[in-house]
């Protein structure tokens, strides 16, 4: 079957279709966020599995590593990670609920409510990350 818009490169088409929420409504924004955070979390999972491999090096290897992990820029990345988790988790609940045919008429309200919850939890988590 012929591809849509043959004059756009496949990459440009994918970026436009999956990652550009401009001119689109809340559900589309939720989809874009879900996709970006999902990809980010998979990358993090792989990274995390490699990093915790340092436990094999015993207390000397691990304890010095976690000292470097307490640098402010790493903590800032932790907050980004938590944001990704919260957005993906709460949006995932929304997708599950509406995917089972419940609340499809009020999916936008559900999205903004859950994102407000995500923001509150993020502020609290951020405070914990930088104060502990």
């Amino acid at each position: 079957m012929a591809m849509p818009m043959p004059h756009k490169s496949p990459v440009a088409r994918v970026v436009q279709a999956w990652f550009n929420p401009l001119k689109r409504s809340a559900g589309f924004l939720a989809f874009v966020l879900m996709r970006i955070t999902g990809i980010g979390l998979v990358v993090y999972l792989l990274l995390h599995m490699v990093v915790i491999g340092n436990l094999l090096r015993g207390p000397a290897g691990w304890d010095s590593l976690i000292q470097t992990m307490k640098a402010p820029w790493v903590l800032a990345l932790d907050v980004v990670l938590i944001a990704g988790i919260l957005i993906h988790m709460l949006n995932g609940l929304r997708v599950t609920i509406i995917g089972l045919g419940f609340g499809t008429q009020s999916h936008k309200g559900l999205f903004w409510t859950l994102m407000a919850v995500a923001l509150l939890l993020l502020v609290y988590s951020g405070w914990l990350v930088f104060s502990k």
Partner: protein
Amino acid sequence: MNNNGLFGQNKTITLKVWRYKPGTIDPPRYDTFQVQANAVTTVLDALEEIRATQDGTLLYRHSCHHASCGTCGMRINGREQLGCVARLLEQGGDVVVVEPLAAAPPIADLVVDMTPFAGHFAPAGMRLVRASEFNAEAETPPGIERFSRYEDCIECNLCLSACPVANTNPAFIGPAGLAAAYRALVTGERSPAEVFADVDHDNGVWRCHSAMECSAVCPSDVNPGHKIMALRRELVVAKVKRFFKGG
């Protein structure tokens, strides 16, 4: 369009129209046209004006001019709309970009190939006629009990164009086709086994990621996103039942 006053002051609007003719305007480009518009001028009006007075080679499709035939779907400032009811001055700005629908192969200018749409839509089997919600006060002719209307979907392809998945995977049945399948299921026109066989696969109901943009752009209140979700629920219930019955 010289009815200055009656429908508000005329305003000059610049239309940037996507042009493409295989072998002639290839690669595609945007052509710029200026038109006078008042409060009731639609994008389709403007295109007709351009074709009549500025560039007779401009191609677009249309028929009814009142959002009933679903022929003049296009992307106006990046959003899928029917050109015949999209008012030019309500598009937010003095420059309005007009492009063909996405997720359909372009034929020329704003005309796209509707074959992929029909290929996904037709198999669902839409033959539903229902009671009209309009003209409740209208007198019915003798011998006719009430007015009926055909199904809401006007087969305009806006939903497919707005769908993030249909834009990258032409094999996806898409919003209109899945909504039609759900309707065939609830009206009993087709058996659950028939409908499920059509939609329970990678390019069917499970391919939808609930962006709900199809419902956002639908000009005819079909609400395809809602119907896909409802269809998915029917399938989940059927699968869970089958799982516990050990079928």
